[in-house]
C-alpha cells in the first residue's frame, strides 16, 4: 500500500499546476460552502434566539384544547343533544396559588402569572385598543420581554406601586401622550381607571410596542372585576429546548392549554428546515462542480499514464491496485482541497464577522452579521468534497484498471 501511495504522490506532484487548479477548485467549493453554512446557520440561530427571547418558552393559558363537555352530555347517553344552552364558564385559571406552587416545585426556570384583559387606552379623546396585562413585578422581571428595553423610565417603576402603567413608545406617540402623562384604561367590563405613564419601552416588535400596556396585577384584577384571578402563566426555561416536555407535563397536570414556543412557531421552524434543505442542495451543487475538476485531472492522468498502467500491470500489479492508485489520487486532491478550503472558509467567516452595518429603519442599531461557528459545517463540507472526489476519482480509475496492457505494449512496438 505504501508503494501505491508513493506512486500516487509522484503522479500528482508531477503535474503541479494542473493539480493546483483542481485543489483550488475543491478549496473554493469547500470554503464557500462553509462560509454560506455559517451565515445561514447564524441567521437562523439569531432568528430563533430572538424568537425565543421575545416570547415565553411555555405559555399556559386558561383555555382547553377541546371544548368543555357539558354536564348534560355526561348524564344522558343520547345520540346527540342539540339546542343546549351551555353553562357560563368562569374564565381564568382556577386555584392559581396551587398551580404556581406546583410549578415552583419542579420547573427548571422562571415563571410569572399574569392577567391579560382586552381594553381601550384613552388619552385626550384618542383611543387605542390594547391588551392590558396585570403582572407581579418581581416575578415578571424574570420572564418579561420588555425589561431592559426602556426608552424612558424603567420596569422597576411598576414595583413602586400606585397606578403606574408601562406602554410602548409607538402607542404613546399614537396617543400623543408622553412620559408622566395620565391615561385612562377602559376594560371590557366597562370599568375605568386612570394610570400614570411610568415607562416607555421599545422592543422592536410592533404588536407589543403598539398594543400592550403593563399594570400591576391587582389593578388588572380590579379593572376586569375578577379579584385573585389570573389567566396566563408564562415560563422561561434555562434550556429552551426542554419546552415541549415541560409544556406536556404542565398541560397534563393543570388541564389547561400549555403551548411550547416550538409549537407556537411551527410554521416558521418548518420554513427553516426548508431553508436548510436548499442550503445543502447548493452546497451539493458546488461540490459537484468541484468534482468535475477532480474527474478531469484524474481522467487526464489516467490517459497520460496509460503506458505506466501497462507497465505496472505487466510487472504484476493487479487491477485492484490500479483502481486504488487513481482513487487515492482523487482523494488526495479532495483532502488537500478540503484542508485549504477550511482555511479559506475560516478566513471568509472571520472577514464577514468584522463587517458592521446600520439598519436604516431604526438608525440606531449597529449590527454585525450573525455567524455561527460550527465544526459541523467544516465536517459536512469536507465529507461532500471527499465524497465527490472519491466518485470523480473512481470512475476514471475503474476504466484505467481495465486497460489491457497488451494494447499499449503492442501499440508502442
Amino acid at each position, binding site marked *: 500500500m505504501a508503494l501505491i501511495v508513493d506512486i500516487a504522490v509522484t503522479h500528482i506532484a508531477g503535474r503541479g499546476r494542473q493539480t493546483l487548479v483542481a485543489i483550488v477548485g475543491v478549496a473554493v467549493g469547500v470554503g464557500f460552502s462553509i462560509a454560506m453554512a455559517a451565515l445561514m446557520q447564524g441567521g437562523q440561530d439569531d432568528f430563533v434566539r430572538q424568537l425565543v427571547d421575545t416570547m415565553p418558552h411555555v405559555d399556559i393559558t386558561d383555555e382547553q384544547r377541546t371544548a368543555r363537555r357539558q354536564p348534560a352530555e355526561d348524564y344522558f347517553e343520547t345520540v346527540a343533544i342539540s339546542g343546549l344552552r351551555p353553562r357560563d364558564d368562569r374564565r381564568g385559571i382556577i386555584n392559581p396559588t396551587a398551580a404556581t406552587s406546583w410549578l415552583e416545585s419542579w420547573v427548571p426556570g422562571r415563571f410569572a402569572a399574569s392577567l391579560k384583559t382586552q381594553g381601550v387606552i384613552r388619552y385626550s379623546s384618542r383611543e387605542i385598543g390594547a391588551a392590558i396585562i396585570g403582572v407581579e413585578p418581581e416575578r415578571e422581571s424574570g420572564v418579561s420581554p420588555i425589561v431592559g428595553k426602556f426608552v424612558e423610565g424603567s420596569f422597576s417603576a411598576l414595583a413602586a406601586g400606585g397606578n403606574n402603567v408601562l406602554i410602548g413608545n409607538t402607542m404613546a406617540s399614537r396617543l400623543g401622550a408622553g412620559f408622566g402623562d395620565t391615561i385612562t384604561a377602559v376594560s371590557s367590563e366597562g370599568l375605568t381607571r386612570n394610570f400614570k405613564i411610568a415607562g416607555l419601552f421599545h422592543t422592536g416588535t410592533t404588536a407589543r410596542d403598539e398594543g400592550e400596556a403593563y399594570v400591576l396585577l391587582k389593578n388588572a384584577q380590579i379593572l376586569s372585576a375578577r379579584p385573585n384571578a389570573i389567566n396566563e402563566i408564562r415560563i422561561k426555561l434555562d434550556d429552551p429546548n426542554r419546552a415541549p416536555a415541560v409544556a406536556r407535563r404542565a398541560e397534563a397536570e393543570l388541564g389547561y392549554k400549555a403551548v411550547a414556543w416550538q409549537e407556537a412557531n411551527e410554521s416558521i421552524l418548518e420554513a427553516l428546515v426548508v431553508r436548510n434543505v436548499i442550503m445543502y442542495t447548493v452546497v451539493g451543487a458546488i461540490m459537484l462542480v468541484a468534482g468535475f475538476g477532480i474527474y478531469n485531472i484524474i481522467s487526464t492522468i489516467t490517459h497520460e499514464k496509460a503506458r505506466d498502467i501497462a507497465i505496472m*500491470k505487466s*510487472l504484476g500489479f493487479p487491477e485492484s491496485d490500479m483502481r486504488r492508485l487513481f482513487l487515492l489520487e482523487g482523494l488526495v486532491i479532495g483532502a488537500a482541497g478540503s484542508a485549504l478550503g477550511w482555511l479559506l472558509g475560516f478566513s471568509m467567516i472571520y472577514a464577514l464577522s468584522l463587517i458592521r452595518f446600520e439598519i436604516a429603519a431604526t438608525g440606531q442599531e449597529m449590527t454585525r452579521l450573525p455567524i455561527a461557528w460550527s465544526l459541523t459545517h467544516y465536517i459536512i463540507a469536507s465529507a461532500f468534497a471527499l465524497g465527490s472526489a472519491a466518485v470523480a476519482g473512481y470512475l476514471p480509475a475503474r476504466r484505467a484498471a481495465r486497460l489491457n496492457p497488451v494494447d499499449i505494449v503492442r501499440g508502442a512496438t
Partner: protein
Amino acid sequence: MSALIETERLTRILPETVPVTLVKDVTLTINDNEFVAVTGPSGSGKSSLLYLLGLLDRPTGGTLRIGGRDSEPMNERERAQTRLSTLGFVFQFHFLLPEFTARENVEIPMRKLGRLARPVMRERAGELLSSLGLGEHLDKRPDQLSGGQRQRVAVARSLANDPPLILADEPTGSLDSKSSEQVFTILQNLVRERGKTVVAVTHDLDMAARMDRRIHMVDGKIS
C-alpha cells in the same frame, strides 16, 4: 531439466468482425535454463505468443501450463501474482516509470511482492544494477540515461524478484549495435551463469543463431 512452460494447441483469435488469428495451435515446451529465440516475419504472431506465455493476454483456445500450473482457472489477481513472482518482462522500449530513479524502478516489483525488508530491497536493487554495469547511475531518472542503459535497467527490474523465466520482446530492437551486443551478453549470462530461462522475440537472425534454440513462426504457427 524440467518443463517450465508447456502449451498445447495454444490459440489466440481477436474477436473482430473479421476474426484475426494471432496465434494458432502452438504446442511447445520450454525447459529450465534454456535460451530460446522466437523468430519470424512481422505479424507472424511472435509477440502475441510471448504475451500469452507471460499471462498478459488470455488464449482463446488450447492450454498453457506455467511452472506446472494450468493458467486457465487463474483469476486476474492470481495471474498478476504469477507475473510478479515467476516472470520478468523486457520490452523493446525500456518501459520504465519516468518519475522514478533507476534504483526505484528496480525496487518497485520487490516492494509489490513485499518479501524483503526495505533496506534489503534497496541493497539488492543496487547490486543488480551494478552487476549490469550501472553502478554509477543508480539515482538517475530514465530520461538521464541512454537507450542501452535504460534497457539494462529494464533487465535489472525483470530480475528484481529473482524469477526463473525472463520474457524479452525485441530487447535489442531499438538499440545500436554496441548496446545490442551488451544487452545480448547480459541475457546470455542470465542463462549461463544464473540458470534462468530466457525467451526472446527477435528478428535479428544472427542473434537468434547464437541462442540455444529457435522457434520460427509464420502466420501464427510454428514452422
